[in-house]
């Protein structure tokens, strides 16, 4: 067998290693591992988010075309990036729930929704505040702005659906389907600028194309802020998923108590 090794030792094949990942879908194992990594992620988040934001706010020069308003990108771009990526993460965990029925994945999607909604709201507000001096309007029915607004409504709908259905498995099923449908708008939010040219919103601020991306003096703190926002998301996601797991366990214990009382 290809995965068997000599010297009496056995190494695991890629498939086996991938299968071992599913062990962390076990709530007990997830709680143990997340409890260990959480302080490290909090530390990394503080080390990237705080310096990234301070650098962006205090130590970046005025831009020739945007003036000092360029400082808004350090909160607008990271929050918009996270708004889309969080929905993608929810899509992956929702598909895992639908296919493999792992409760932790459904709870992780539920835990991520409020964070994603907050990031979308921040992106919408900071975009509007920046739009007024730049475009002369807070809002335009531009493809990217509109798809972001729809994404925000999907986040709201997703959370409302979780709250409205009492049976947690049914709620996980229906919200997962909603998440798959909403993914169209998450992708549209990302690529709307490329699909339609008539919008007000400019192209990506971060691009691998050196001609296209913003100058290094703005780019470096921006990357740091995006990493910081990403780590803040992971931190909050772990805290909130652990809370959801505890609530689920509490719900089960309460149900048992009620049954034994009856």
């Amino acid at each position, binding site marked *: 067998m290809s995965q068997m090794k000599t010297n009496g030792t056995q190494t695991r094949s890629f498939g086996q290693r991938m299968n071992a990942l599913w062990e962390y879908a076990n709530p007990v194992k997830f709680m143990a591992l997340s409890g260990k990594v959480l302080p490290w992620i909090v530390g990394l988040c503080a080390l990237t988010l705080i310096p990234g934001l301070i650098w962006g706010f205090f130590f970046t020069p005025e831009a020739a075309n945007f003036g000092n308003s360029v400082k808004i990108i350090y909160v607008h771009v990271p929050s918009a990036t996270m708004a889309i990526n969080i929905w993608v993460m929810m899509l992956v965990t929702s598909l895992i729930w639908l296919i493999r029925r792992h409760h932790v994945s459904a709870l992780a999607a539920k835990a991520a929704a409020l964070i994603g909604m907050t990031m979308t709201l*921040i992106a919408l507000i900071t975009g509007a505040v920046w739009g007024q001096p730049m475009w002369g309007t807070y809002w335009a029915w531009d493809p990217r702005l509109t798809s972001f607004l729809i994404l925000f409504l999907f986040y709201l709908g997703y959370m409302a659906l979780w709250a409205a259905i009492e049976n947690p498995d049914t709620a996980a099923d229906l919200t997962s389907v909603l998440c798959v449908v909403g993914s169209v708008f998450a992708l549209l939010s990302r690529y709307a600028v490329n699909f339609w040219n008539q919008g007000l919103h400019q192209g990506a601020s971060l691009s691998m194309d050196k001609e296209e991306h913003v100058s290094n003096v703005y780019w470096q703190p921006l990357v740091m802020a995006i990493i910081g926002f990403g780590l803040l998301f992971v931190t*909050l996601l772990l805290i909130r998923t652990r809370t959801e797991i505890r*609530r689920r366990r509490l719900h089960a214990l309460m149900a048992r108590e009620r049954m034994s009382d009856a």
Partner: protein
Amino acid sequence: MLDLGKYADAILWSWGLTLLLLAGLTLMSLRASRKAKADLKAAEERRKNG
């Protein structure tokens, strides 16, 4: 003191709202976590003591 020029209002509003929303979300998450932990602990103790 940092001079933000004519965009000072837009910049301060954007940053202020962002930090406020992120701080609110973090506090809410921590508070919910603490409550769930305490409630679960109490329920497990009740179960242990019969």
